[in-house]
């Protein structure tokens, strides 16, 4: 118990340091990349403005102050739980993100379910029939999945399932049917890595002494695979999952935009284009927090699956 509390404490400290570091790097990058929100705010594309107007607004919003000072101001706000408001839409950043977060999370989970449905059987096939045709099938599935760009796959799925067969809606959110195409697109994009990983692990496990012993005891193959080997192979998968949460949230963006899925995708892409600093910073803060937090959860699951692992010696992240 004491160990557990210590672990949580140290992880929380890590979390704070990590998120601070992340937010500062983002802030720095945002400020040194060319472009600022001033022209968007002044709407120069259809309202007459002069360079003087731009400079005045720059001063009013203190974008001309030193970067550290601007960052310090932002951190002070965050400490008071104030993420500021969007420069463009003037809505509070926290509201904007929290509005969109649930949809992104639910799509991520949908993608994970599809991933699971694809990766587990394919991984098992590859391992059990190593070097025979099901293994090649699994390998090709992984290779194809890894090579298809997700936006293209999404478009193809829409074309086939919505346009040709009229089975599923093209875009949007609302019913279970709306869930299918974006989840499949996401799941297929992420599955290959897991198929290969599970296969490698299973092969290694199937050759380990305790499985050999089980075989010698005359246990049936099915039983060996499903109740012994698979459990041992899930551990690295869980680890992998913890590590790939970041890329999952990145991959979800493209798919959200394609399917008009009302998650954070559109929000963050347009914020980056318009250099809407407070929104970008708020997004990084919350996503960073989520990634670190989910890694913590993964560690817990790790301990549950395999209690022998001592957290001190074999940390996951």
């Amino acid at each position: 118990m004491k160990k557990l509390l210590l672990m949580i404490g140290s992880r929380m400290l890590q979390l704070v340091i990590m998120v601070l570091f992340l937010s500062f790097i983002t802030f720095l990058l945002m400020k040194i990349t060319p472009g600022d929100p001033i022209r968007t705010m002044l709407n120069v594309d259809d309202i007459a403005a002069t360079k003087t107007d731009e400079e005045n607004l720059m001063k009013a919003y203190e974008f001309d102050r030193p970067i550290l000072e601007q960052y310090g101001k932002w951190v002070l706000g965050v400490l008071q739980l104030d993420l500021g408001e969007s420069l463009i839409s003037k809505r509070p950043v926290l509201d904007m993100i929290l509005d969109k977060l649930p949809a992104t999370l639910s799509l991520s989970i949908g993608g994970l379910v599809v991933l699971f449905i694809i990766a587990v059987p394919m991984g098992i096939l590859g391992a059990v029939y190593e070097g025979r045709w099901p293994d090649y099938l699994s390998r090709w599935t992984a290779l194809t999945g890894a090579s298809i760009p997700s936006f293209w796959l999404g478009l193809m799925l829409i074309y086939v399932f919505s346009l040709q067969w009229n089975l599923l809606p093209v875009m949007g959110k609302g019913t279970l049917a709306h869930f299918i195409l974006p989840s499949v697109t996401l799941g297929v994009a992420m599955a290959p890595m897991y198929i290969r990983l599970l296969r490698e692990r299973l092969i290694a496990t199937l050759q380990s002494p305790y499985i050999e012993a089980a075989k010698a005891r005359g246990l049936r193959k099915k039983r060996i695979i499903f109740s012994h080997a698979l459990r041992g192979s899930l551990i690295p998968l869980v680890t992998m999952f913890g590590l790939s949460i970041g890329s999952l949230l990145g991959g979800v963006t493209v798919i959200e935009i394609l399917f008009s899925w009302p998650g954070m995708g559109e929000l963050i892409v347009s914020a980056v284009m318009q250099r809407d600093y407070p929104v970008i910073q708020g997004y990084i803060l919350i996503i960073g927090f989520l990634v670190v937090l989910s890694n913590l959860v993964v560690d817990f699951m790790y301990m549950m699956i395999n209690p022998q692992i001592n957290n001190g010696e074999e940390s996951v992240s």
Partner: protein
Amino acid sequence: MKNKKTIAGLLLILLLIIITGCTDEAGTEKNQSTSKDKSLTILFSFASKTIDPHQDWMGVRAGIAETLVKLDDDLAIKPWLAESWEQKDETTWVFTLKEGVRFHDGSPVDGEAVKASFERAIEVNEALAPALKIDKMEADGQQITFKTTEEYPAFLSELVHTNASIIKADADNIGEKPIATGAFQVESFSSEEEIKLKKYPKYWDGEANVDHISIKFNSDANVRALALQSGEADISYHLPPESLEPIESHNELRVESVASLRVHFFLYNSAKPELQDVKVRQALDLLVNRPVAVEEIMNGHATAANGPFNPDFEFASEKDPTSYDPSKAEKLLNEAGYEKNEDGNLEKDGKPLELTLATYEGRPELPMMAQYFQSEAANLGIKVNVVTVENIDSYLWEQQQEWDIVTYSNLTAPRGDGGYFLNVAYLPDGSLNPGQINIPEVNNITKQLNKEADQEKRIELQKKAVEKIQEEISQSFILHPHIIVGVNQRVKNWKPGSEEYYLITNEMDVE
């Protein structure tokens, strides 16, 4: 064994989360219109984060809010919420409001309400104070008097801007449920996802034909085209020319294509010595093959440009667009002192003519135009290096020494008056003048224009400016891209406008 149960349990929870996560809105679908109701769905490209009419164009586009004056089909200014107006002196404008106009909550639209609306607009939108230049306002019954900070004849056309629309300023939650005067009122809005509208039965200009309208957003043009074909959208905005074939051949769908108020052009950097010679600019202009750009690059969905302004405008040039003529271009370059060296490159005083042409991916047709121009120039012995940059504006302003030419695109008369473009693209302090264009004669005309209230004289001045601009060739105006909209045949009495300010009307209907 226990672990298997745990994992199964976790999976079950995940599934439950998904199912609850995606049925949270299914419940609200029930208040859908009855079968007798007419409804339609519009799919738009730029997702609105807010529908506050003072912040976002959707307020007016969606038929929720209205401005005092609007552009008619011929792009001329006509009354809308204002019955009439009068310019008392150089800085005083008196507007008389229509009688009987009411906000969606039933409260009357009088001078006080309009004043409060403008006060709020200027407060929440940084762009409006410099655009409207309002010093003070006085309300008196159905009249409102504006005093501008300076002599400002363009004030009237600036009032066309969607952000100058009239809303109930003291309402709550304006970002999601603005209360205004339009034919439609907001039922619900979820940011970047959907606006649900229902008709406002007491609309002053006659009840709308359609009961319910849903505006959805998708920034992927291919998906917008697919959603139209699958029947999920009745109107899909901003379709790419290459996606039109299946729509055009579909008997239940049609394509509307209308010249926009935007122009694609090459901008020449006037700080570069080679480009300061007007003969060189004329020669480069002759290398721009406008018909090919219209037909090949835009698939015919564009209008060749004869100057900055859409040819439908009275103040646009009446001449034909410059023809493609490489041999004439070569002659002009010879006159400017360029001769072919032994490598076949044009050079002057031992220095070959080499130009950097900047472009960006934001509008996919621009890099194509750049490449096309590059090969035309190469045929003549001019080396053009194309560079693609991510953020074109900051590159142009912050690296002014690095580029010679840039592919650019601007709205030139968004409110039916060219004064906007003449001010921002030609005056030395203009926000769209990174090429540091400075033509004294054009500057003088623009300054006169900024003081000229008489509409006829304004047109004359703008024509004069256009003529001078086309003589100087500080830009090569190439084409006006079209706004391409896919429409289901069940939609009647509707076509897209050039100005893109008005989208939903009380007249549009569905079968």
